[in-house]
């Protein structure tokens, strides 16, 4: 197991180098230019443009810039944002904290509500309960978040007067976090509910459940001791993979609610071609995705001994 982990971790290095290289190359050769964006309507003042390119080091050859960036990034220095007057690291650390809180809250809700609804739908297969659950989550998933979010916000704030406008971030226990967490959960609910429902239905029709039932075990005991244990392996994998998405932030949700998380940081940098921020956030997102995949693999092995044997 330790050897397996070590090999996986070593693989991270070339993967991060590849990701950073491609991100850097796309930024360097792609359309847009942070200095021109910074200059706004004076973008054609060539003298200022050249002075600013020199100031930010963008006048150097591609490989020199890339090598310099990576050397500094390895020491935790991701450069300085061109448009936000701060070191990228100082922008990323608090943003990661905010997004992690949001993501973890959504993950808990997703696990409790998604798994609960999935089990309920499976237990009441083809009844009105099943149909209602599945239909509701399909509808929630089908409405784009940039439509659903403002509508829910106006409904809850202006019509029902249930809360102040959820704009900004006052911590996960503030009322401002309710709607973003709900939307983050709702966006992934369909996947978890359907996965859970299918797994539970499959487990319930298996031979070992039939045997347990024949032995006279109650339905509750069968569900808890036999069905859930076996059905949860694929569900956990699904939730694990979703967690990398939740922990790296949602561009739309964070932007709509002005949440200073990783998603809005990335989105803002993308709009303005703020390369130091774009590359820094991309590297961190890549690392998070790789780490969560690793954790999922480990958990998978712990839950399913067959996976360990195969390794």
């Amino acid at each position, binding site marked *: 197991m330790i050897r397996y982990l070590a090999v996986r971790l070593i693989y991270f290095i070339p993967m991060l180098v590849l990701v950073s290289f491609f991100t850097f190359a796309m930024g360097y050769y792609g359309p847009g230019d942070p200095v021109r964006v910074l200059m706004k309507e004076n973008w054609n003042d060539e003298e200022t443009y050249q002075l600013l390119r020199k100031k930010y080091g963008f006048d150097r050859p591609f490989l020199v810039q890339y090598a310099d960036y990576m050397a500094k990034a390895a020491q935790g220095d991701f450069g300085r944002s061109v448009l936000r007057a701060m070191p990228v690291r100082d922008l990323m650390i608090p943003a990661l904290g905010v997004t992690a809180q949001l993501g973890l809250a959504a993950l808990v809700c997703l696990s409790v509500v998604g798994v609960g609804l999935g089990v309920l739908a499976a237990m009441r297969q083809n009844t009105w309960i099943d149909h209602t659950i599945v239909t509701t989550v399909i509808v929630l998933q089908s409405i784009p978040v940039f439509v659903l979010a403002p509508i829910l*916000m106006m409904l809850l704030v202006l019509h029902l007067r249930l809360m102040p406008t959820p704009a900004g971030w006052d911590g996960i226990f503030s009322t401002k976090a309710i709607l973003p967490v709900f939307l983050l959960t709702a966006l992934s609910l369909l996947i978890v509910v359907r996965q859970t429902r299918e797994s539970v239905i499959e487990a319930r029709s298996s031979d070992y459940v039939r045997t347990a039932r024949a032995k006279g075990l109650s339905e509750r005991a069968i569900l808890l001791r036999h069905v859930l244990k076996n059905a949860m392996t694929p569900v956990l994998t699904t939730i694990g993979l979703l967690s990398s998405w939740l922990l790296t932030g949602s561009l739309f949700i964070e932007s709509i609610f002005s949440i200073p998380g990783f998603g809005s940081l990335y989105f803002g940098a993308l*709009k303005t071609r703020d390369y130091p921020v774009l590359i820094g956030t991309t590297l961190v997102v890549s690392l998070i995705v790789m780490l969560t995949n690793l954790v999922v693999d480990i958990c998978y092995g712990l839950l399913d001994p067959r996976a360990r044997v195969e390794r």
Partner: protein
Amino acid sequence: MRPLHRTLPAVTLLVLASLLAASCGAPQTPPSAQAPQASQAPQTVRETVIVEQTVRETVVVEQQVVVTPTSAPAPQAVTDIPPRPDGTPAPPEKQVFRFDLPSDFWPDPISLGNWYGEWNVLTSAGLTTEGPDGQIQPELAERWESSADGRTWTFFLKQDAKFSDGSPITMDDVTFSLISFLDPRGISEGLYRAPFQDIEGYQAFIDGTATEISGIKAVDASTLTFTLTRPIVYFPKALGFWTARIVSKKNVTEGGQEWWRTPVTSGMYKVGTFEYGQRNYLELVPNEYYTLGPKPKLQKIIIERVTDPSTRLTRYLNNETDALYYPEPADVAAALRGGELKDDLLGNVIGGYFFFYFRHDRPPFDDPKVRQAFIMATDQDRLARTVLEGTLVKAPSLMPRGAECYPTSDNSVPFDPARARELLAESTYAGQMPLVRIQVSEVSGIPVVGRWTRVATAMADMWQENLGISVQLQTKEFEFEDSQDGAAQIFRSSRSPLVLDPGVMTLQFDNGKGIADQAKYVNPDVQQMLVAADGEQDATKRCEMYQQADKTLFEDGIVAGTWGISNWAFAKPYVRGISTANRWQFYLSMPQTYIAEP
């Protein structure tokens, strides 16, 4: 009876649909969600828009655009919203004014990375400043005078001026601030340095051959001179710009790159609370040491970053803010039509403008007759009334509105499709018109089909209808992207006046500068006229020269269409004394603004 399990999903859908519908309905519907009160039935126009998605790939998108005829009352050419009547001021503890900004902000008046930083006029003093009426006023400078040849300006500073920490504002602070602002390599990007490029020795300083700007001299502790390479009558106005402000040298040099986290201010307000990072939040409170102008009536100004426009609108409607800065054009259009927020609307046409310009070096627009033909075939008034829904007006001049010499009549080229066709027939491209491409970049930077894409589409339709020329539309994220492929000949752009003076035309249209550089426009006569006007002491003669230059610029076909920027904002009816000035939203009226008793 139908089984419950069959009907429940439908019921669920119905409930969700009702919730969605309810959230869009009365009584709190934001203006953007309201249906226009059209007096005529909408017409459906089928049109083909060619959208070039990448440099090499062109896709044809067919779309239906519903053109709603103007509602009753029909949108007027935008007139200035009259000032609000006076009211009884609320007690000091209620003098709190709150608004949101759409992007990051920080208290640094001399850095131009600060996109929405105009509010820094509240916290920082300049040598001069501008009143809400656009007139230049003394601030840190008590008075100023020019030499007989108009090349040397001497400013006499007030002696009792202090920063918000009680320390005196010295000449050293003044020169440090100005040089920091003018040096793109320093702590400020120095992007708006154009009005100062005529200071003697500035070019040598930029080139690195001089360590100081020789034209800026502190004669003594209270006398500062600027020596210019040519006479410029409007120079004191340039020093009123919101980035040419005074910061504390000690604060900046000791505070490092993020000195603005604990700023010492020179303006009427000081920073009470400032958060930047997880939250971008600022509280301004009166600077008790400020003696350079009137004391503000508002006891607290609260600014927060809220990036999403619908969230900003929700906060405003929910009384969480008192003003809505930069509302969406659709919300303004709804208010102009008499919508829910009509009494909250503030606004006037300001000195800046949006425009489409021709590249004079690219066929067929290297022929002046083709440029004239395209301009005469464009009904700019109609575009303002219909596609722009009355939120902008056709600009009659390239001078900034509100500045002296601004014409009372229209200097632009009139709409005349018959003459346009004649000119086209007389041009060198008659019968052999190359492919014409118009490039649109929306303000936000993201390639969305926004209002400028709609305006460009309508312009293309007009040219098709009036000249029989089909024009390809291409959208790019940024205006400057064309410099990489050189395919388009017509572009959208905008300008806000760096100086509220007709002299700003020299900065924009002199050869090799500003818009002239973008359009590759060269006319030595215009250059000579503008430079001469800048130095002319006789106000009447000066205005005549600018007027002539203005007309020549239009006749030379530098712009395909120009619309004056309107300075729209919403403010609650209890906010009094507030007005949008010729520039910088409502900030210049802040000294007079107060909260009135209901």
